[in-house]
């Protein structure tokens, strides 16, 4: 299985290459990608030097142009596709049928991957993208159980990539408008979820409050650890009870599933986190490289090392990890 690592900056890209990523995925500095955060992503010069490093080390570069194109901004998405093709990237990751159509017709040799934002969760949907646009890989949303991943992988006309580690989207990617309902900006159209500019922190007698566009997402007691107010991870009132009604602030960690994923024929595992620091990318890449190598050298004797687990736990949201939807009990 290939290890696909995130880079929101040149230092993160370098860290991923140094620690053994097989491929690094990046985005351009605009709303054509799903991590359109202030100060994030690579400019032209950084991309060129990143690509040089990747070529020197025999690795691959993927570029995500994976938001949905706005009709008035169509040329921006066109230009992003053209730029990726001109760079000679190893894969373009896209979701919009219009963008995929443009890329496959204009650049027939460009290797296309269906983004997780394409929200394809079954073999028939994958067949559509394969037949019409010639995609050569698809990233599955994080809503499928392990049994469902197996079913999809068996019938899929293209190799499958799954998320292995990082933030956990509780909703099917590409099928969530919660952020735009509260803030006006969504992953599909703006490349952001719960945007930082809508966040307000407030300290008062009741403790620390986090708000998103004025809406109270969570309130923390004095000694309670506070997390970023991603709106699906707040505590809300349902039937008179206050709890994490949608999702606890936990991270996905699937080290334990490496043997099963490999047995299903999953071709690549993806680390989430283009918005995270170079130090995060370095640590996660290092652990996952070690784990995948250990599995490859002795599949029958694979076991998750305690030091891998503790290294990753320190990097996780809320310091807790979960198998997410891969494990039925989570659902």
């Amino acid at each position, binding site marked *: 299985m290939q290890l696909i690592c995130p880079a929101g900056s040149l230092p993160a890209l370098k860290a991923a290459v140094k620690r053994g990523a097989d491929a690094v995925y990046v985005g351009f500095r605009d709303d054509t990608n799903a991590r359109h955060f202030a100060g994030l992503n690579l400019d032209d010069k950084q991309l060129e030097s990143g690509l040089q490093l990747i070529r020197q080390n025999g690795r691959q570069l993927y570029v995500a142009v994976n938001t949905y194109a706005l009709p008035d901004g169509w040329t921006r998405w066109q230009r992003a596709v053209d730029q990726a093709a001109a760079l000679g990237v190893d894969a373009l990751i896209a979701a919009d049928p219009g963008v995929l159509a443009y890329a496959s017709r204009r650049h027939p040799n460009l290797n296309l991957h269906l983004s997780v934002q394409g929200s394809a969760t079954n073999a028939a949907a994958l067949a559509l993208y394969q037949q019409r646009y010639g995609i050569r890989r698809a990233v599955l949303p994080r809503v499928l159980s392990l049994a469902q991943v197996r079913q999809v992988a068996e019938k899929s006309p293209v190799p499958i990539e799954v998320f292995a580690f990082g933030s956990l989207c*509780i909703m099917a990617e590409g099928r969530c408008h919660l952020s735009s309902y509260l803030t006006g900006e969504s992953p599909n159209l703006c490349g952001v979820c719960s945007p930082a500019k809508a966040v307000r922190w407030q300290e008062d007698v009741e403790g620390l409050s986090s708000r998103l*566009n004025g809406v109270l997402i969570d309130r923390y007691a004095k000694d309670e650890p506070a997390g970023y107010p991603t709106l699906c991870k707040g505590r809300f009132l*349902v039937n008179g009870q206050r709890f994490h009604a949608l999702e606890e602030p936990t991270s996905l960690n699937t080290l334990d599933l490496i043997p099963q994923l490999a047995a299903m024929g999953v071709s690549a595992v993806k680390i989430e986190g283009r918005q995270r620091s170079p130090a995060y990318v370095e640590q996660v890449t290092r652990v996952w490289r070690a784990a995948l190598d250990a599995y490859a050298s002795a599949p029958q004797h694979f076991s998750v090392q305690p030091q891998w687990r503790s290294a990753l736990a320190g990097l996780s949201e809320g310091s807790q990890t979960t198998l997410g939807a891969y494990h039925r009990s989570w*659902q």
Partner: protein
Amino acid sequence: MKLSLGPVLFYWTREKLLDFYAEMAEQPLDAIYLGETVCSKRRALGLDDWLGLARELRECTRAELLLSGLALVEAASELSSLRRLCDNGELQVEANDMGAVQFLRERGLPFVAGPSLNLYNGHALAEMLDCGLRRWVPPVECSGNLVRSTLEQLDGLGLERPEVELFAYGHLPLAYSARCFTARAENRPKDDCQFCCVGYPEGIALHSQEGEALFTLNGIQTMSAKVNNLLADYPQLCAAGADFLRLSPRAEGMREVIAAFDAVRGGALPPLAVEGCNGYWHGRPGMLRAEEISL
């Protein structure tokens, strides 16, 4: 302007569904969407029941009858149910997943693209037209400007517009998950949910800790707490190119809702303001009401 009744998004008992559609058959509707779009475990009516209901309704309404498919199709069993639905041979299908588009395209059948398909621009619509699209329901987060410029982009490509159906009334379907939030709220595992969502004919309200109504939990679907209502925006809906207005069923009062929309399309003045929200249409956060933020 035509009026459509969207699929029932909540889980109602068989009896409630049959009573509801008997009443709806008498309303001034131009299209009625049948079928289950949220959860494959809900089986008050199966495919054959829906088809049987459509045959009965055809006797008493002139509305076009369609069948809506599941939005989040994960298990192999769900995919084969979806294939059977696309093969029904009687009713046109609203595709809510690209898997359905693939089945319908393979069969050369025209289809409606439901609001959970991510079609946000003219190039994407062009692709779907090539697959058999005849009617487009834009994603609920689309603004009036986005709808208009998407259609203009399609004009620029020299392609004929599909019919356009706007989500004009009801709780907005906002997100789909692997997890059932209704079961979670009742401390039940999803695999043993006991169909508890049947106890909430209009979902469960989710409030912030300050008591602000935010969302509605409806099984694996998260909806808006507020009811989206575009009646006051009627002239702009026409100007943007809408052919149909979709009214999404609520547990009570749909007859009055339909009557209000019917009156306005018949020439009555639209209200100056309505309850609920219409922020998305105005390019603002969906939860807002344009009249309140003086747009």
